[in-house]
C-alpha cells in the first residue's frame, strides 16, 4: 500500500543527481572538446551540391596521411599569435598522432581509447578529457566515413572544385553557437587549412603543409598507435 517511504528511504533515489550531472557533462564537454577532432570530421561528408559526397570520397581515400602543421592561436588580447609547429600522422584505422615540436615539445594521440599525452613514462590517457567518450566516438565515427553527426550539428556550405575547395561549417545548436561562430576549411586533394572562429573572439588557424598520402605508417608510428 502507501509507499512514499519506499520512494524516499531505500537507495533508489536517482533523481536528485540529475541536477549535478547536467552541468558537469557540459563542463566535461567544454573541457574535453579538442579542436583538432575537427580534422577528423573532414574526412567525410554526405551529399550536397559540388558535392560533399565527392569531397567525402576524396578525403576518405588515403589510409595514412603524413604532414607538417603550423598552429596559430590568435588571442584577442595578444598582438602576435601564439605559433607552434610540428608534424601529424592521420591513420584511417588508428587515429591521429599530433606531434608538437616548437616552441615546446609535446606528443598527443587521439584513438579509440581517448586522448593521450606522452610523458617520460609513455602515453598517458588524459583522465578528464578522455571522459568525454562522446567526442571520441564522434571523431572515430567520422574517421570511418559516418558523417551523420556532422550534418546534424553543422550547416555545411561547400564552394569551389575538387582541386581547390572551401567548406564552411556553421553550428546549428545553441550550445555549439556559444563556442564557435564558424569553422572554415580549405583544401585541395587534402585538407590545407582549418580556421576556427570562437564566439569569444579568439581564433585558431591550423595549416597542414606538405601532406602526403604516399607514405605508410612507420614502425615507430605503428608502435605509438598500438600502445
Amino acid at each position, binding site marked *: *500500500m*502507501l*509507499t*512514499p*517511504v*519506499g*520512494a*524516499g*528511504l531505500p*537507495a*533508489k*533515489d*536517482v*533523481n*536528485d*543527481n*540529475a541536477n*549535478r*550531472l547536467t*552541468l*558537469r*557533462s*557540459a*563542463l566535461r*564537454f*567544454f*573541457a574535453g*572538446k*579538442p*579542436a*583538432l577532432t575537427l580534422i577528423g570530421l573532414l574526412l567525410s561528408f554526405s551529399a550536397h551540391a559540388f558535392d560533399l559526397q565527392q569531397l567525402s570520397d576524396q578525403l576518405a581515400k588515403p589510409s595514412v596521411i603524413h604532414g607538417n602543421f603550423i*598552429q596559430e*592561436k590568435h*588571442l584577442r588580447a*595578444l598582438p602576435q599569435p*601564439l605559433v607552434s609547429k610540428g608534424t601529424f600522422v592521420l591513420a584511417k584505422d588508428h587515429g591521429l598522432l*599530433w606531434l*608538437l615540436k616548437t616552441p*615546446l615539445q*609535446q606528443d598527443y594521440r587521439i584513438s579509440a581509447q581517448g*586522448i593521450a599525452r606522452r610523458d617520460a613514462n609513455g602515453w598517458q590517457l*588524459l583522465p*578528464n*578529457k578522455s*571522459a*568525454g*567518450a*562522446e*567526442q571520441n566516438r564522434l571523431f572515430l565515427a567520422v574517421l570511418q566515413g559516418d558523417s551523420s553527426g556532422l550534418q*546534424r*550539428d553543422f550547416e555545411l556550405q561547400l564552394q569551389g572544385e575538387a582541386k581547390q575547395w572551401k567548406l564552411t561549417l556553421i553550428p*546549428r*545548436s*545553441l*550550445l555549439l553557437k*556559444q563556442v564557435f561562430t564558424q569553422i572554415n576549411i580549405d583544401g585541395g586533394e587534402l585538407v590545407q587549412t582549418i580556421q576556427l572562429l*570562437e564566439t*569569444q573572439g*579568439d581564433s*585558431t588557424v591550423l595549416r597542414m603543409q606538405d601532406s602526403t598520402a604516399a607514405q605508410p605508417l612507420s614502425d615507430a608510428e605503428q608502435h605509438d598507435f598500438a600502445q
Partner: protein
Amino acid sequence: MPSERLLPRLFLILLVAVLALAGWQWRHGAPLSANLMELVPGSTPDALELKAEQRMQEPLNREMLVLVGHADRQKAMAVAQQLGERWQASGLFEKVQWNLQADLPALREQLLRGRLAMLSAKDREQLIEHPDAFIQQRVQALFDPFTGFSLVPSQDDWLGLTGRIQNSQPQHGSVQLDIGSGALIADADGKSWVLLRARTTGNAFDMKLPVQVADLLQASRAQAGEQGAQLLAASGLLYAANGQQQATREITWVGGGATLGILLLLLLAFRRWRVLLAFVPVLVGMLFGAVTCVALFGHMHVMTLVLGSSLIGVAVDYPLHYLSKSWSLQPWRSWPALRLTLPGLSLSLATSCIGYLALAWTPFPALTQIAVFSAAGLVGAYLSAVCLLPALLQGVDLRPAQWPLRIAEGLWVLRATLIKHLPSPLLLALVLLFCAGGLWHLNSKNDLRQWIGAPPQLLQEAQAVARITGFQPTSQFFLVRADNQQQLLERQAALGQRLDQLVNMDKLQGYLALNQLVNLPAEQQRLRDALNQLPQHWQPLLDLGVPANALHAEIAQLQGLPIEDIDAALVGPLAEPWRTLWLGPVDGGVAAMVSLQGLNNPALLRVQALDLPGVQLVDRLGDLNRVFADTQISAAELKLMSCVLIVLLLILPFGVGGALRIVALPLLAALCSLASLGWLGQPLTLFSLFGLLLVTAISVDYAILMREQIGGPAVSLLGTLLAALTTWLSFGLLAVSSTPAVSNFGLSVSLGLAFSFMLAPWAGHQKHAL
C-alpha cells in the same frame, strides 16, 4: 421507562453535533494524508535533522527521471523529444527537460568570481609551492590543441585558473552530453539512453498527482514501445501512485468484503430486513473514529482508513450481543435484551479499548492513529448500539433461523465428546506441546521494507536507471554543525579526508560536500598572498607576448576579489548540485549536509563520524530498523500490561479466579497463533505481534460471553461464533493486502481469532445471581 425515550434523543443530539464537527473538518476537502513518513517512528526529535531529511527527500518526491532507450541514438533522441513536449503540454509538470542549453555567460561569471574560492587543493598547492611549474603548465596549455575551449577567454584569465576549476569538478556517472542536440545520453546494453528529467507541480503526497503521472508514463511507455523505444523511469511519485492505487483497492476489498459478508450473515441468521440496522453502529463508529482522528492529529492517514476498516467487524459485535439472544429469549424485545447484555457489552467495550489503546503507546504514529481511531470508533459504536439501535429495533419480532443454533449445538456436543475421550488437562498438554514445537520454528524478521508493497518491476526499473546513469545516491547522509562557516568547512574537510579513503578503497563511489565548492577563507587568503610571488616566475608567459601590465592587472583584480563565503559560492549555475546541502544559520550556528553516492557498506559510515565534533550520520533506514527491533520487546511488555489491566477490570464481576481464567484463554490463543506462524513458516514481525496484542483484547470478549452463558452454552457459543466470524471477515481480509506489514497483521489476527473461538468454551460457567 423514561430512559428508553431519553437515550435515543440524547444520542441523536450527540450524533448531530459530531456530524457538524465532521462537516467543519471536511470544509476544505478530505483531511487525508498519504505521506507514509508520518507513520513511521519519529526517531528524530531534532528539528534540524528533520529539516535536512526533508531537504534530501524533496526532489525524490517531485522529480522523475526517465531514460528513453533505443538502439539507434537518433531515434532515441527523437522519441525523448516527443515525450518531453507531450509531458510539458500535460500541465502536470513544472519543468520537463530533455536537453541542456547551458547558460554559459552565467557559468563564466561564476568561474571568474570564484577563481580563488573554487580552485582545487591540488592546483592551489602547485601555485603556492611550485609557481614555476604552475606557469609552465599554463604556457603548455596555451599551445595545447587538446585543452579544449575554456569557457573564459585567455585575456580574462591569463593564469588559466578557470580552466583548472573546470577540470577539477567532481565527476560521477556515465551520462554524456551530445554536442549537437544538448541531450544527455548514456550507452548501455547495446542501446543509447536519453535522459529526461521532469519536475512535477505538486509532490508525491498530493492525492491525485502521482496517479496522473503514473498514467501518463504508462501511456508514454506504450507509445514509445510502438516506435521500438524502451522507457525506464524512477521516481518517488511512482511508488506513491502505486501505493495509492493499492490502498484504494484494499479499502474497497477489505471494507466492501467485510460489509457484504456481515450483512449477508445478519440476513441469513436473523431473516429480517430491519436487522440490517445493526450496521448503524458500524457507520457511527467510523464517523466517531474519523472525527476524533482529525481532531487529534489534524488529518487522517489513508493507512488508518485501511486498517481502521477492520473496525467494521468489531463494531458489529455490540448489536450482535443482544441480537443473538433471540435464540433463547422468546419473544425477543430490543430493550430487555439490551438490559440483559449491557454488563457484558460494557465489559467488552472496556477490554477492547484497553487492547487498542495499548497500541497507542508503541512508538509508531501509525498505530497510535489506528488505536485512537478504533477506540473512538468503538465508543461510538457502543453508544449507538446502547442508545439508538434498540429504539430503531423496537417492535421487531426476531425469529432467527434455527440452523445456526443447530450448528452451535452440534459443536457443543462435539466438544463434550472430545472432552470425554481426552480430558481437558491432557488437551492442554497437547496444546502446549503444539505451541512449544511451533515456537521452536518461529523466527522473527523486521525490516522497514515490510511497509512497502512496491511491485518488483518498479524496483528493477529504478535499479536499471541507477546502473545506466551510474548514479547510486544513498539515503544516508552526514549532517555537519559548527559555530560558523569557517569551522563548518574545516569539519567538512576533516570528514572529507576520511571519505576520500573510502572512495579510494571502492567502498564509496563519491560524495558531495560544500568544501569541494568553496575553499576555507584562510586558504583563499593564502592563495591571495601567494599571488605576490608570481611576477618572479611568469617570464615564460611574457615571452609568449602576454603584456606584463595585463598580468599585473589580473593579479590586482584577483587580489581584489572578496573572500567568498558559502552563500556567495552558492550563487551561479555551477553550484546547483551543492545548493540543497546548505542548511544555513541554525540555532546560533550553521549547518550543512554531505551527501553520498554508491555506498555498499553502511556500517563503515558510522565509524567515519566518530570523534569528529559536529559530524553526525543520519541513517533513517538503519534507525528505523533498530526501532522496529526494539519495539518488539516493548510490544510484548505492553501486551502483558494490558492483560494485567483487563484482569483487574474483570475481578469485579468474575472474581480473581474467573478473571485470570478469562484472560488466560486469549493468551493461550495468542501463544497458539505464534506457534502456528512457526509451523506455517511465517516470520514473526512487529505487525503480527501488534495483531496478537489486539486479538487478546477482542477475544477476552468471547471468553466473557461463554462464561456468562446467558441462554445456555449453545446460544453463547453461537453468539461467540457470530462475533468471531464478523471480526474475522474484516481482519482476515487484511491478510490479502499486498503490503507485507498489513497482511502479516491480518494473518496473525485471523489465527488468533480462530484459536480464541476454539478455546472460549473453557472459560467456565459463571453462576449468576441475577
